[in-house]
């Protein structure tokens, strides 16, 4: 588990807290850059769009959903492995989870927030978006719970709440460690954050139980969230979207892209926060194997989807299929197949699976593929619906492209802030993986 020998308990505290308490100029430059990019690429175009209308984006009559929605799915998907993986591995007691779960959960939280931002960017009148919350409004009207979008609202708020609680509760003992290691304002803040945690057996006991329940709740929740997101599409009758397979397809794709995202984040943590001691080959290897499995499932579902479209044999489905496979966006489709179905097979080789750099490249390619997949779903089905006369075409505008780029900067900004506020590796759980000290040792 530890590539560089086992650290002592005190070392764990020191190493992890150092990433929070010691901040070099590099960090500030990086943070400034990501915030700047987020401001210029995301918020400024969005502000412009708020003034002129959603027409600033490239969507049109034939494709009223565009990259905003496909990005929304992408970010929701990316959120999936964090909490889900963490919870599953917690329940199944997999020790290799412990070094990586905190950052994975953070990824969940921040990609969910980014996804929620895309909802705001997507809707036509964001200033009335609160009408879709289940709270009484001035019209005396409640939202329509029959709408798949309402499922989304419910699922995503629940997911956001549960994930925040999950990550927060897991961090309480670590907040106490920060409190003990710091002075002044920070100490006061972390006193509050840590709830006065002492680490008594009773506290541990309660936290352990509560945490397990959180995990038990989060697993079906996470599965439901992406199923529900898929139903936004599948509950329509649009050819190319109206597929039974969509829920598992989306869940699988979500976990797939999320797991790849974890690899990317792990690489960065290891590289920039010097966690080589804690994040080792075993993690990479396990994630690599998981990715292979997921890519095979993903490929299978994809084939199934094509098959059912073809086998159905209706003009609707065939036309949508044709547009997807050989239409304008066919290059993107085949790029997605290459990145998500074939490239991951390289990981069958242990040499590749054990190489941090190669795994980084593969994980990024997978996520590019998954980003494309979501775009393909949105951009190739709507313009090929039922009435051929209304067949159309959609191409994103520069505003959409800029906002897409900006969203990555937002995610990065949130993550950079996170690593300074929360220990990005769980201190106490890493200690659990260490062999206990014995007097005779």
């Amino acid at each position, binding site marked *: 588990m530890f590539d560089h020998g086992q650290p*002592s308990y005190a070392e764990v505290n020191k190493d992890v807290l150092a990433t929070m308490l010691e901040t070099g100029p590099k960090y500030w430059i990086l943070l400034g850059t990501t915030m700047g990019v987020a401001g210029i690429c995301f918020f400024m175009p969005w502000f412009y769009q708020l003034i002129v209308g959603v027409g600033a984006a490239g969507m049109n009559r034939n494709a009223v959903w565009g990259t905003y929605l496909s990005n929304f799915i992408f970010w929701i998907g990316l959120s999936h492995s964090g909490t889900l993986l963490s919870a599953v591995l917690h329940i199944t007691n997999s020790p290799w989870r412990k070094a990586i779960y905190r950052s994975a959960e953070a990824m969940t939280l921040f990609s969910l927030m980014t996804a929620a931002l895309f909802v705001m960017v997507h809707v036509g009148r964001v200033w009335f978006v609160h009408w879709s919350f289940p709270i009484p409004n001035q019209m005396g009207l409640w939202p329509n719970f029959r709408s798949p979008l309402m499922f989304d609202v419910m699922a995503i708020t629940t997911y956001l709440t549960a994930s925040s609680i999950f990550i927060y509760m897991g961090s309480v003992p670590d907040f106490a460690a920060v409190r003990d290691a710091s002075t002044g304002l920070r100490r006061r803040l972390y006193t509050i954050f840590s709830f006065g945690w002492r*680490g008594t057996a009773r506290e541990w006991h309660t936290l352990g139980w509560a945490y397990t329940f959180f995990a038990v709740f989060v697993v079906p929740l996470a599965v439901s969230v992406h199923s529900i997101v898929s139903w936004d599409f599948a509950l329509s009758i649009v050819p190319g979207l109206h597929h039974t397979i969509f829920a598992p397809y989306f869940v699988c794709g979500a976990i797939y892209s999320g797991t790849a995202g974890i690899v990317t984040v792990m690489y960065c943590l290891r590289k920039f926060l010097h966690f080589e001691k804690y994040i080792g080959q075993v993690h990479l290897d396990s994630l690599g194997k998981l990715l292979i499995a997921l890519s095979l499932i993903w490929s299978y579902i994809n084939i199934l989807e094509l098959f059912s479209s073809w086998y159905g044999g209706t003009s609707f489905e065939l036309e949508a299929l044709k547009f997807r496979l050989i239409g304008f966006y066919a290059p993107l489709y085949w790029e997605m197949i290459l990145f998500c179905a074939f490239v991951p097979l390289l990981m069958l080789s242990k040499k590749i699976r054990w190489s941090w750099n190669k795994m980084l490249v593969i994980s990024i390619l997978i996520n590019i593929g998954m980003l494309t997949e979501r775009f393909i779903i949105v951009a190739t089905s709507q313009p090929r619906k039922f009435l051929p006369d209304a067949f159309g075409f959609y191409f994103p505008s520069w505003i959409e492209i800029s906002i897409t780029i900006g969203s990555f900067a937002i995610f990065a900004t949130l993550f950079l802030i996170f690593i300074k506020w929360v220990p990005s590796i769980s201190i106490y*759980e890493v200690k659990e993986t260490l062999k206990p000290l014995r007097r005779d040792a």
Partner: protein
Amino acid sequence: MAVIGAFAYEEDFLAAAENLKASGFDNISLLSPLPLEEAQEVLGLGKSPVRRFSLAGAILGGICGFAMAAGTALVFILPTGGRTIITLPPFLVITYEMTILFGVLFTLLGFHFVSGLPAWRDKPYLPSANIDHFVVVVEGAAGEQVARAEAIIRDAGADEIRHVEEDQ
């Protein structure tokens, strides 16, 4: 008066805890930098009542979820898509989400309730308990109990022993 003993080794700490318990000290806290099942066993902590909160929350959430979906549909009847007012399949999805939401929230509540956190008052504590030391705290000791507890802790091999006045 509280007696605090810090141990560098888990086994010494557990031995001290057991001895204290055997000597009739009931009001002891066992502080450790990581969860120790053995320590919980010493204190006789079995199944946590948190689970009851989770169950109650989940049930309540489920009921509330369905009630919200069905109730709001009844309050302001707006037919859509030829569906029934109480449309079961979509409302079950809402019920499901609300079950989980309330389950999580009640589990959180249960955690706070059962663990006694947040605790804003200063309690006997050593910061090293959150790094690499295992700490036994004997609370509410008075008179000769203090010396007896101290002896047990010292015998078990504590690195450091302190006495703290409790602000009762």
